[in-house]
């Protein structure tokens, strides 16, 4: 599978950040969650994994993160050093479906966690953690406890925590699925801005066509039973979109959503084994 060249790939993009080769996952109950997925994630891409529930998109993301081993196939990190634990060193940030914060710790300590686990002292980490909180607009809430925050703010803490190690790759597993539409749109803009400003590489799991179309520079549409990539579409770069208030109501966006919807419909009703290249 090779994606058509996108319009604005950054230099050095030839070497993928992570490369999946024939990755399959069969759970202990026999379900084949993911069937022979091959994909290269290049630097600077915003890749969405879009598909119905049960298509293995979260499974794929977890395998990339090293949470669970593939039953078959390999995950390579051509551009990273591999740490002692067999994972790329400090290269992954992960945002879960829920905020997944420690309720007994204030916001600062929650965002500080990844650094603390690496043995960085609180004094040394203070500036980095505060900077991460600032990028998500929560610098004034460092002492608040998670329960004192709204759902959207908790999610932002989670994003700040994922960014605090300055990861090369940010993995997001349906992060805004439980939020209301307005908060979700705002956070979509935030993520796009961070992606653009920090030159992140993002893999974003979603089941929303609109979200995927708004955010992505590339969409991998997945089908279920067994989970597999059905089509891999390169789109125009979403850079700067978050500053264009009119984009969400533009014809271009509408056209994009229609296009992605059709691909998704194709994926959901495609016969097995009919994966597009």
């Amino acid at each position: 599978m090779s994606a058509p060249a996108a319009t604005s790939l950054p230099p050095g993009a030839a070497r993928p950040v992570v490369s999946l080769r024939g990755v399959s996952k069969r759970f202990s109950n026999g379900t084949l969650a993911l069937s022979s997925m091959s994909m290269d994630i290049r630097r600077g891409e915003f890749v969405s994994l879009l598909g119905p529930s049960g298509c293995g998109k979260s499974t794929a993301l977890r395998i990339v993160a090293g949470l669970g081993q593939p039953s078959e196939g390999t995950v390579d990190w051509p551009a990273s050093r591999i740490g002692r634990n067999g994972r790329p060193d400090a290269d992954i940030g992960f945002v879960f479906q829920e905020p997944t914060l420690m309720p007994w710790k204030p916001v600062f300590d929650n965002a500080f966690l990844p650094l603390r686990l690496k043995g960085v002292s609180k004094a040394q980490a203070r500036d980095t953690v505060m900077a991460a909180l600032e990028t998500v607009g929560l610098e004034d809430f460092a002492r608040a406890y998670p329960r004192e925050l709204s759902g959207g703010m908790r999610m932002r803490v989670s994003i700040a925590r994922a960014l605090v190690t300055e990861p090369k790759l940010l993995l997001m597993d349906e992060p805004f699925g439980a939020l209301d539409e307005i908060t979700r749109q705002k956070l979509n803009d935030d993520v796009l801005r961070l992606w653009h400003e920090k030159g992140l590489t993002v893999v974003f799991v979603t089941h929303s066509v609109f979200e995927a179309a708004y955010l992505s520079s590339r969409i991998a549409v997945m089908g279920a039973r067994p989970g597999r990539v059905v089509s891999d579409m390169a789109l125009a770069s979403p850079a700067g979109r978050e500053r264009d208030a009119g984009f969400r109501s533009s014809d271009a966006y509408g056209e994009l959503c229609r296009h992605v919807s059709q691909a998704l419909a194709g994926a959901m009703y495609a016969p097995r084994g009919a994966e597009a290249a």
Partner: protein
Amino acid sequence: MVALADDAPAANRSESAPGANRDRLMRIAVPAAMLALTLLAWEAYVRLNGVPPYILPAPSLVAATLVKDWATLWPALLVTLQITFSALILALVGGSALAILLVQSRWVELALYPYAVILQVTPIVAIAPLILVYVPSTQGAIMICAFLVAFFPILSNMVQGLKSVDHNLLNLYDLYGASRWQQLRMLKLPAALPYFMAGLKIGGGLSLIAAVVAEFAAGSAGAGSGLAFRLLESQYRMNIPRLFAALVLLSATGVAIFAFTSLVSWLSLRRWHESALSREN
């Protein structure tokens, strides 16, 4: 980026509503008035019907006995308190330590958990005579009984707590390469704290009850020791007012332990756990 208005903190910590003070006053006044009424009715019943003190002493007589026999009751109370608290502390340390050990490995859990259950389900009164035979000091034997009773709720609560950690938080710790020790200290133990506190509250009450029951079982072997012994002794001598006085002291001790453990629980959970927060709708 500026946090917008609809993104403001969900909860407001200030609660200076005018109703709050009245509510607090009611919470003290109502039970206090009820208690006073009950005592008054009791006193009136005893006096009006001329009930002899060896059947039912009036509250005023019980209070007088409490003062008069203080020299006998106070040392007994100290003994009971000492047994109760040393048993509770042992149970807290032992229960938590065993719980940590049990969740480390499934093998250890399979091997050891049945013994914990057997110790728990066997009535303490039934084992007490045996322990009294084996352990040279009566005080020590009583303490072991109290320990055995308080131990299990703490163990089972801790095991439950250590196992109920949010799976995604565990994944997160894995992702950042946390060691087992870091995971235990920074994630599992804090997450288990509410469960530990529930165990503490149950264990605190149980260790007092078990101390009393064990002392009953010890009978005359525990001569001159705790409150339970004084209670039995008063019964033999038909000194019912003193029996009531000892009973009052035991109840007061139980209430104090409950208040103390509730306070500890509230202090440690008030910032974050739902159980320690007041609901605002």
